[in-house]
């Protein structure tokens, strides 16, 4: 009886030690799930989801505090990917967080800009250059189209312009066969 208890206790201690060692040895820094969710999110950092950026939203999704359909720039495709990753059901984009728009860039009307630097402070990806009382301009290549620079501008000189299709961005369309109605035969 005592021997049996000792054997079991010894086994428990050994296994516990092994588990403890493994937990320390194979420790994973950070939350891999958050990283995976963050990789799916479009990184516009627009805050339309109600969080202060893509990473906080990813953390909230991972914790189960946020729905997966709160990201308008990611669109339906992003929601599908999140649903696949998390094993949740697909939900269409929640209307209160916005609608999916074509990808755009901010354009500053350089005639109207007064050089107040408010948009520079608002830009989450430092895509606006300029200095106090100097004209500002947007680095189009870095602009994520988050629209965060629009509200602070005191003279409303920033507008969003959808990105036009160019030779570099043109895509072959999904093949669709045009079905013509069959000619009617005389009865």
């Amino acid at each position, binding site marked *: 009886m005592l021997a049996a208890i000792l054997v079991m206790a010894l086994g428990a201690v050994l296994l516990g030690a092994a588990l403890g060692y493994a937990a320390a040895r194979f420790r994973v820094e950070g939350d891999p799930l958050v990283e995976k969710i*963050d990789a799916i*999110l*479009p*990184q*516009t*950092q627009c805050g339309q989801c109600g969080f202060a*950026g*893509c*990473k906080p939203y990813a953390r909230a999704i991972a914790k189960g505090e946020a729905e997966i359909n709160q990201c308008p720039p990611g669109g339906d495709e992003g929601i599908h990917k999140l649903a696949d990753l998390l094993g949740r059901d697909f939900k269409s984009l929640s209307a209160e967080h916005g609608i999916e728009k074509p990808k755009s860039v901010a354009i500053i009307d350089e005639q109207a800009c007064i050089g107040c630097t408010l948009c520079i402070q608002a830009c*989450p*990806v*430092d*895509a606006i250059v300029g200095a106090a009382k100097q004209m500002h301009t947007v680095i189009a290549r*870095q602009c*994520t189209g988050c629209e965060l620079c629009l509200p602070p501008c005191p003279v409303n000189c920033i507008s969003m312009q959808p990105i036009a*299709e*160019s*030779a570099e*961005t*043109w*895509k*072959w*369309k*999904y*093949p669709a*066969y045009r*079905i013509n109605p069959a000619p009617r035969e005389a009865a």
Partner: protein
Amino acid sequence: MTVLQRLFSFNGGVKPAYNKEASTGLPIAMAPMPAQLVIPLHQSIGGTPRPLVAAGEYVLKGQRIGGADGDVSSAVHASTSGTVVAVEMRLMPHTSGLSARCVVIQPDGREEWIPRQPFDYRGATPEQTRDYLRDAGVVGLGGAVFPSYLKINPGKSGKLDTLVLNGAECEPFITCDDVLMRERAASILKGALIMREMLGAARVLIGIEDNKPQAIAAMEAAARAANEEAGHPAMQVVAVPTRYPAGGAKQLIRVLTGIEVPHGKRSTDYGVQCFNVATAYAIYEAIALGQPLISRIVTVAGNVARARNYEVLFGTPMRDLVDLCDPRPDSDRVIMGGPMMGLLMPADSVPVVKAANCVLVGSPKLFPAPPPEMPCIRCGECAKACPADLQPFELYWFSRARIFGKAQEYHLFDCIECGCCAYVCPSHIPLVDYYRFAKSEIWARETQKEAADVARERYEFRLLREERDKQEKAAKLAARTVAARATAAAALAAAEKPVITAADVAKKALITAALERARAQKAGVRQENTGNLTPGQQAEIAAIEARRAEIREMAKPHLRQDD
């Protein structure tokens, strides 16, 4: 010189109707000068060249008008002398119907060349020769328009085994390489010799499909002459069986050498490099004649009465070429390239570019609309026909269902879009259209992902910077507070008690020393008027002293009272 060469074979392929006879009856003719030349700056794989001219400038024939931009890019030249009318967006020869930046030249009819000098590639370093070819605008003229200077690189080994010249020209209707080989065989081989020298290749294999006996004969004669001149038989013309797509680079290498270049490898890893015969000719012109690439041979065929090959200056509208050949009245479209891989042009006004090996005129009768797409019946015909040994049906399902990751796993990007699968498909599925769709979607996602990664990095850096600024500000404030407190405390302490500092001690020592000096001086100074006195004077002084003593005696009681 019929050296028996063991030939190999690639899997798959098809044998469509070749339709090549119509355009080979007449020799190459120079296409007449058009009213205006519209030269797109972007004519090759890689970066769009920077425009080097502005509207109003006069340019010479062969003058560089677009400079190569980036590591993969190739220059563009004025096809004739004249005035630049505009540098603006014009419809480009691409199915998308989009515009691209073009240089529009009004020819002056004088055809005045830039000074042309042969390039001494033997006296130049390989880098210099490659830069020269880049600036001469030489690109692969088989249709892929990949900058040739990047391919004239033997790689790490510094030596190649085989240089393959591609004269297979397997696609129906196209005969530009055929007539070029018939008429300019010697120049092609001179270009091949230059390439062979640069690549350090031991031998040159010229693969020509056996449905071009005249081209084979001409090239064999030229090769014999070249070998005799060089003194050893490096050049060898090989007739390869006619089967589409024998002219694919990997397919021709397979047929000629038996080497199968696997996924993710280059042919140079196996000691083989492949060039089109027209590219060899362009290299000859660039290096031996000093002429940049400004024209090419273009086959005009299809629904025309007089199909023919023309030497065409880049920038010539396709419409002008078609009009030379009497198009039939039911013609309704222009295709750049052949019927298998060609691109439908948005209009016949688009210019001839470096990629345009053929201008194919179509009509509903010649190229009837495909019957409706039917479901895939999984017959496997497409897999049998695929020359790249892929599984087209799998690629089709994944592309159709937008499962792009899986499509890539099945090596979608090894597909050369030859169209054999769609050609044999009994369900008339436009398979290549699905692959093109999937490829461009995957590319778009790649770019999107790269942009997202950059945005994430920049956002995280901004957060980091804001945090750092905050901390720096806080640290500065704390330091200032500490400093202010210290000064206040010091002032207070100074008010309460004098503090003897080292400076004070030094000062005191200085004062003591000065006093000491003064005392010593005083002691050292004798009253000089008391010495050397006459006895009379001494007596007088003594009398005065005596009187003083007397008076002091008398005043003593008073003095005591005062004390």
